[in-house]
């Protein structure tokens, strides 16, 4: 189509869906991650009220990630999922706990409410950590033979994936804190500003750690960035250097904006920071959809499936954007300080 491979178009679209998932569900997972740091039950109710009408739509991007990957890159889906069996399973179970907690917290009485409050926080944190392990396991690559996973069940668990897991959890926390800056007022708003400032620094450090560790993973990545243990290939590095520089600037900007009077800016800057990290990842892993073994063309579904999907997905995605925007518009504005979930 227009001289561009369908598989390439779909690789971009799937990457976009995953990115939307990360920045959208990221903020509501992040609110759960920050739950333990809230002052009291009233403040937690306020935090939930800031995400309750939209979390379900946000999580649907994850379902699209799974279903879309199956539809467009079945071989990548079939290779990756068994390799990441355990962290995916943990993520799903964590998401179950936090997902039902939205309603259950409201219906539980004293002990029930406490249990589902802990389940919401614990589930959000566990989901973020598991997703970090999935991401780490994905980046570091696994052993495949003819598209089948042939490694061991715990191959994904490495020091590298642990750093990624911590980094992603902090990142979601940052999205959550900046979302709370946007949606809340009063004492909680002040607290959220403090959280956002600390988390911005922590995320900056974690991103640096993950970036450096990624360089050591694979020769391809080293070459891409022009950085190795022994020498720096300046021309290559100069081309990609804007990314880490931009990331550092963004961290500083978030740190400043979180303290100021801005409502939405800290969240938008945090999204941009995630986009920078995402671009860095793309630079490292291009052109692989299953790192170091499978390109989009290798893993793609037959062309007629990709074409059908594209014809259906483009109008549907426009429609989804339209009503998603409408729902966010309906629930615009700050959550009142005396708001509760129901």
């Amino acid at each position, binding site marked *: 189509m227009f001289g561009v491979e369908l598989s390439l178009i779909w690789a971009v679209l799937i990457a976009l869906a995953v990115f939307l998932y990360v920045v959208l569900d990221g903020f509501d997972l992040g609110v759960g991650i920050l739950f333990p740091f809230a002052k009291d039950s009233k403040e937690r109710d306020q935090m939930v009220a800031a995400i309750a009408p939209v979390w379900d739509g946000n999580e649907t991007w994850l379902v699209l990630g799974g279903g879309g990957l*199956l539809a467009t890159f079945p071989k990548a889906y079939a*290779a990756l999922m068994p390799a990441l069996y355990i962290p995916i399973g943990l993520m799903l179970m964590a*998401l179950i706990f936090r997902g039902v907690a939205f*309603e259950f917290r409201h219906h539980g*009485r004293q002990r029930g409410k406490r249990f589902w409050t802990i389940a919401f926080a614990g589930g959000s944190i566990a989901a973020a950590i598991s997703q970090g392990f999935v991401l780490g396991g994905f980046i570091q690559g696994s052993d495949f033979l003819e598209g089948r996973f042939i490694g061991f069940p715990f191959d994904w668990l490495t020091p590298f994936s642990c750093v990624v897991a911590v980094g992603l959890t902090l990142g979601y926390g940052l999205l959550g804190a900046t979302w709370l800056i946007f949606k809340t007022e009063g004492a909680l708003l002040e607290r959220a500003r403090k959280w956002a400032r600390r988390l911005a620094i922590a995320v900056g450090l974690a991103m640096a750690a993950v970036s450096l560790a990624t360089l050591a993973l694979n020769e391809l990545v080293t070459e891409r960035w022009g950085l190795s243990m022994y020498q720096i290939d300046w021309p290559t590095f100069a081309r990609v250097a804007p990314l880490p520089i931009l990331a550092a600037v963004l961290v500083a900007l978030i740190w400043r904006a979180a303290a100021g009077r801005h409502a939405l800016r800290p969240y938008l800057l945090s999204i941009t920071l995630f986009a920078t990290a995402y671009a860095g990842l793309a630079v490292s892993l291009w052109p692989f959809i299953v790192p170091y073994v499978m390109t989009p063309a290798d893993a793609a579904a037959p062309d007629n499936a990709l074409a059908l999907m594209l014809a259906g997905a483009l109008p549907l995605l426009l429609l989804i954007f339209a009503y998603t925007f409408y729902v966010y518009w309906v629930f615009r504005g700050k959550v009142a300080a005396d708001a509760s979930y129901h």
Partner: protein
Amino acid sequence: MEWDALLLSRIQFAFTIGFHIIFPAFTIGLASYLAVLEGLWLITRRDHFKNLYLFWVKIFALSFGMGVVSGVVMSYQFGTNWSAFSAYAGGVIGPLLAFEVLAAFFLEASFLGIMLFGWKRVGPGLHFFSTCMVALGTLISAFWILAANSWMQTPQGFAVGRDGSLVATDWLDVIFTPSFPSRLLHMTLAAYLTTAMVVAGAAAFGLLRGRANAENRTSLRMAVLMMAFVAPLQFVLGHESGMVALEHQPAKVAAMEGWWEEGPRKPTVLVGWPDEKSESNRFEIAIPESGNFIFGVPAEQSLPGLKKYEASERPPVAMTFWAFRIMVGMGVVMLALGVWGLVAWLAKRLDGARLYHRALVLAAPSGFVAVLAGWIAAEVGRQPYVIYGVMRTAEAVSPVGAGQVAGSLLAYMIVYAIVFSAGALYILRLMGAGPGPGEETPHARDRGPGDMLAAGLAPTAKIAPTSSQSE
């Protein structure tokens, strides 16, 4: 039987999908019911419709939440546990599943927010529109998931591609397989009946407790109408589905009917125990020579028998046989209760028929039992294939170890047991209190800007006695 990754993955899939299907089966029906209630309220402006809506929408929120989280699991399990299936058939079946997400899940999830939290944010018309969009989403979702499953039951419109995996040759053939229309309607009506049984049970419980308010009396009548008119229709659709299976999956039909010998003038086996070793039914009670009549074919026409198929090509017979009987039995119960209710209604004794009310409370879960049994019959009956006649279930499994699958299965069982018990407790608590005048909106204590709808709802200011909020 070896406890390998295959068997454990099958158990895990059966367990997680069985747990999941309970919720869509209920929420598909409930979403449509809510749309009807809100529509009736907007037209008539009679309070009990609004109260019923506000009551059931809380139960909808709980059930829908459990449906969502157990559904996310399904979209990844095809990869974690059935990766060989995904790699082989993903190019054909994947788009059907992806369209379910794109066309249905986003619609449901987005408008659910307005449905639950938008009472004071949008006008009544837009709120009703949101309810309708959620209901529409559940139906679109049923369309695509039944299309996908029906393709696996009666696959067509595909070929084997150059790399050995499947490729579609005609998408309309892939979506509209022979078994699809009857199965889609059968499942949709099953969802409506499931909801009707729950609504009837809750209303009957309220009446038994002496709450003969307009809410309980109205919802009981609505449910009775559904039972009396949809249950018979459901038998027709089930029969239609059986006829398709007779043509495309004769071994499944033979197992459902408990037929071992192929031949004409088949009996209708009412009960018995199909014994795979002796290839016969033990303790059989049958109506001789009525099978052909039930299938609507001439008495001399030959009907399938299991012995025609190698043992390795047969589904587990007893499970298919009994699941089918349980489903039909539940259908008979619903039909009988529908007729009973209609007669009591015509005799103007519906509100005082205590025995009938007790029967309804007892039969409240009958829809869930029927849906589960029906799906077991459908899915066990098409074994040993995951794609009928094309791919065996044994070939579909992921290259993962039994230990991992055993671990995840155990973990799912624990997680689902906790979540299900809590959810059931909260739903039953709400149902026990029942709907009544002055029902609160789902987030009554939220003081959002713009009180448009609340302005039109003066009586909501009262605190409902049903409220069980703490803190």
